[in-house]
């Protein structure tokens, strides 16, 4: 887990302005936080996460340490004081209802709304900033001092004013571990939300749960390996990262205790020497993610924050073996794929021995690449995946058409969309009347073909192409298609000032569609329960009505 700040990792800095900055931490370098100051990276490496540091301007200590850890008590000081005084809580002392209290309640009645209350000029503040020491605290003190109407402010408005100034001038930062939750919020609030399809943190949790994504475990039940997930991810790798986090294959140092870490660092030579034993790329059988992508190369750029560069993957990263990528063309029509379809000729060892080393290297590389693509694509086409997660810019139905048949029974299908329309259309494609019509039409087709085959003594296969034109997806393969959305509402929880936050980000709400993959029986079945309700005059209506599934409508 994230037990301490490791070197050569991305970490996040939460600044007094509530902004987040993500920085790759290299030892022996200087880290710059813009106007909040600089400090050497070595002064935070090895320290625990979630600590708040203050950048000191005049390092007093002999060894040049420029950071001071702020204790929790100091961070909460103000809240604890207001709480203790009972002024804020309204719990401590009874509110004065008599009206003739000694100290009248302070209100904003006397406050004049203009900027003249601050006596310091901009220039003075700028100068103060340059010559400032004490991590910005003196600036704030001066600002408060020279505010002419400070004594008129209520306790709460004073607190608000101080907080605003503090955000601007305090030289503090908090170091946070970079995980999926933080990255999601960062992309949404501070970066380009469109790149991650405006995916929100609460929906990542929901998608992961409905997708039943979890670690594959250490026992094998039945012939197939556990925990194989299929994903279509056009959020730059955010969904893949969220899945990998749930499967325990996102963080290279996960599950490493400090003791074992020290042990291994003591004798690193042993670990690296048997290089040949390293499993090859995409070779894991269980606990894997298979990514279907539209272009020749998948876009997994966000995985760089977790130490995995798709162009130059680190062999020791768990995703190196557990993340498999297959393009739609390789999946649907593998023979036209340039790598899959063209097996490099096998060159006998004798001929190979005559080659120059770099030509030999090229040969082996081509061979292993072909082998890898072959294995991965064949595995994907065999299917039996444990669930399907989709966040795509394409038509969802076209994705489900090809991907749902690759799922094992009872597997979950989850589709995310920032807007609702693609998903209501999807719900409609799996609606009960459509399913009923499809099942009946297919049965008729099969029966007609069988009859024809009997008469002509032939063995023609059933031609379902016409049916597939009308029905893009087979509506009988998904059970209980459901559409839902969740959104969190954050609250301010300062003592005596509890209320929902006044504003938050608008934009896409984000919706989740989910259903369960099933195997319908081919036998003709009727739903139980009271059969069709009172039949109305339907003769006038030429359209066939749904005959079954009346009661068991989902």
């Amino acid at each position, binding site marked *: *887990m994230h037990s301490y700040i490791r070197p050569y990792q991305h970490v996040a800095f939460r600044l007094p302005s509530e902004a987040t900055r993500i*920085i790759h931490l290299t030892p*022996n370098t*200087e880290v*710059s936080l813009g106007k909040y100051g600089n400090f050497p990276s*070595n*002064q935070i*490496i*090895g320290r*625990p996460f*979630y*600590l708040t540091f203050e950048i000191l301007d005049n390092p007093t200590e002999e060894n040049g*340490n420029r950071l001071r850890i702020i204790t*929790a008590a100091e961070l*909460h000081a103000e809240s604890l004081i207001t709480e203790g005084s009972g002024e804020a809580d309204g719990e401590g002392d009874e509110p004065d209802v008599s009206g003739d209290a000694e100290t009248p309640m302070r209100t904003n009645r006397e406050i004049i709304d203009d900027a003249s209350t601050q006596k310091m000029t901009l220039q003075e503040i700028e100068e103060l900033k340059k010559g400032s020491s004490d991590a910005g605290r003196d600036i704030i003190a001066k600002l408060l001092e020279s505010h002419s109407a400070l004594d008129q402010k209520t306790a709460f408005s004073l607190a608000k004013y101080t907080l605003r100034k503090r955000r601007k001038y305090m030289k503090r930062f908090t170091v946070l571990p970079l995980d999926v*939750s933080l990255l999601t919020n960062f992309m949404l609030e501070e970066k380009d939300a469109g790149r991650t399809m405006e995916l929100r*943190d609460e929906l990542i*949790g*929901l998608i992961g*749960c409905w997708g039943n994504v979890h*670690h*594959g*475990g250490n026992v094998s*039940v*039945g012939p*197939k390996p556990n925990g194989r997930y299929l994903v279509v991810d056009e959020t730059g790798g955010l969904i893949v990262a969220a899945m990998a986090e749930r*499967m325990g294959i996102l963080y290279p140092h*996960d599950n490493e205790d400090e003791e074992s870490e020290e042990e291994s660092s003591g004798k690193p030579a042993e670990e690296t020497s048997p290089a040949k034993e390293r499993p090859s790329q995409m070779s894991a059988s269980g606990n894997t993610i298979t990514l279907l992508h539209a272009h020749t190369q998948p876009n997994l750029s966000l995985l760089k924050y977790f130490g995995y560069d798709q162009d130059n993957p680190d062999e020791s990263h768990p995703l190196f073996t557990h993340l498999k990528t297959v393009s739609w063309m390789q999946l649907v029509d593998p023979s036209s794929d340039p790598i899959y379809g063209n097996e490099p000729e096998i060159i006998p060892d004798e001929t190979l021995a005559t080659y120059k080393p770099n030509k030999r290297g090229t040969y082996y590389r081509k061979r292993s690449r072909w082998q890898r693509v072959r294995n991965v694509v064949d595995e994907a086409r065999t299917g039996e995946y444990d669930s399907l997660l989709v966040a795509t810019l394409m038509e969802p139905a076209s994705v489900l058409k090809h991907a749902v048949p690759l799922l*094992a*029974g*009872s*597997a979950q299908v989850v589709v995310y969309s920032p807007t609702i329309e693609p998903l*209501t259309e999807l719900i*409609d494609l799996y609606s009960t009347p459509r399913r009923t*019509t499809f099942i009946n039409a297919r049965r008729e087709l099969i029966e007609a073909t069988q009859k024809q085959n009997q008469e002509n003594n032939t063995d023609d296969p059933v031609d379902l192409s016409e049916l597939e034109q009308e029905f893009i997806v087979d509506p009988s393969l998904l*059970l209980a298609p*459901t*559409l839902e*959305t*969740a959104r*969190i*509402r954050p609250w301010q929880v300062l*003592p005596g000032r*509890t209320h929902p936050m006044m504003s938050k980000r608008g934009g896409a709400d984000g919706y989740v569609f989910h259903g*369960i993959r*099933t195997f*319908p*029986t081919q*036998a003709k*079945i009727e*739903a*139980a*329960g009271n059969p069709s309700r009172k039949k109305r005059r339907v003769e006038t209506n*030429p*359209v066939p*009505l*749904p005959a079954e599934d009346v009661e*068991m*409508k*989902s």
Partner: protein
Amino acid sequence: MPSPFLTPGTRSQPDTLALLHLRRDHALPTILRIHDDENLGYKEGKVTTTRFGSYPHSTLLDQPWGTQIVASKVDTGSRGRKPHLKRKAADLENANSNPSSEGEARARPQPQAAVQASSGFCHLLYPTPETWTASLPHRTQVVYTPDYSYILHRLRVRPGGTIIEAGAGSGSFTHAAARAIFNGYPSAETQTPPAKKRRRFGKVCSFEFHAQRVERVREEIHQHGLDDIVRVNHRDVYADGFLLPSEHGTESPKASAIFLDLPAPWLALKHLTRNPPDGQQSPLDPSSPVYICTFSPCLEQVQRTISVLRQQGWLNIEMVEVNHHRIEARRERYGLESEGIRGATVFPKSVDEAISKMRSVDERARKFREAEAAGLDPAATLEQPSQQQQQSSKSQAQAAQAQLHSQLQSSIPAYSQGRLVHRSEQDLKTHTSYLLFAVLPRDWTEDDEAKCRERWPSHKVDSEVGVQKSKKQMKREAREQREQQRGEQKEG
């Protein structure tokens, strides 16, 4: 025994939990067994009966998960009369005196083969925490999927972690947490030769003070094959804290995440510190930050909890509520021609349709009055509108148009007629509880800091690397430089 929640395999196995999915939000959990332990007297062995047919377990076993199962004909009427009290007693005696497998075989006759019924079906599914949450027997208020998915995500509950759950309640959160921390069955590992690196297996430490509920949760956990992963404790955590009983007295669960679903979470917080005042072990993981979430329905509870959290040095205190709703999407049909179609509203779908309808009604009324005035039977006159219609070319055109319209409509299949609309489902949960999150960093002492400074010398900065600049900063600097150059050019 592997759990069907975590490693279901491909087919249904005996003695594991399965769900019979009848319709949405209606699934029956059942333990699959050929023989009936409760001896309800079915000829087919163990049978699950539902509103939508009866399912002998012989038809459910060894089926691929997700299969649609057809109901069977099961005699449910006569079984009540069958087992005579006397014989039952004899059976019991028999079983007691012959505990061998032979005796059991005799006591349990081979169940009869099931006969397919004419109607009714269900889907056989393996359980997931989500489907289980939707179908579990309620004991207390349930933590539903939108809440627990967010909680587990925010608490950073990941494979190999340890989570404390206080207030096990109905067990929905327990199952979801077990899935989140699962990274293997510890008992399976001991069978294989121990690996070089000792892996930490994830576990859930569940506490509940209601004795009866504890028993029920234990039983469930056992039936679901989660004994390895979930430790259920009967404990009042306010008074007795979170340490686990072990051979040497007590041991720390070393939890990195805590979920408190208690009426007064602030009373439990005193046990959740790095250095408990009474000198006991800390139940927290000393080598990682600890995340906490409390789940309280009332604001007052939250305020008291926050106050205590602050006093005990928890950081990043945040409170949220989760608004969740399900949406139904369906087709809505309007129009006068949609009479007789289920779910359609018979109402003109446009102004034109409204006017033409009004015209035809007026026309009818006029004819009715005319016929009445002429002393004819008005009903009989109206019976032959076709004749009258032929007289007027205008109404003929109208009829043709109506026919064309109905033809156009009929070429569109019923399932894609009308407009696709969506709305929130009928029952909304507008408030579940307030979720309060906080984090407690690792303890950091002067010694730790000194050691760290030794390993990573504070002063050391490689000069050639220089200051790490953010992209934004570099862009800004480049822009400033450009502007400067431009300014110089202008001057020059």
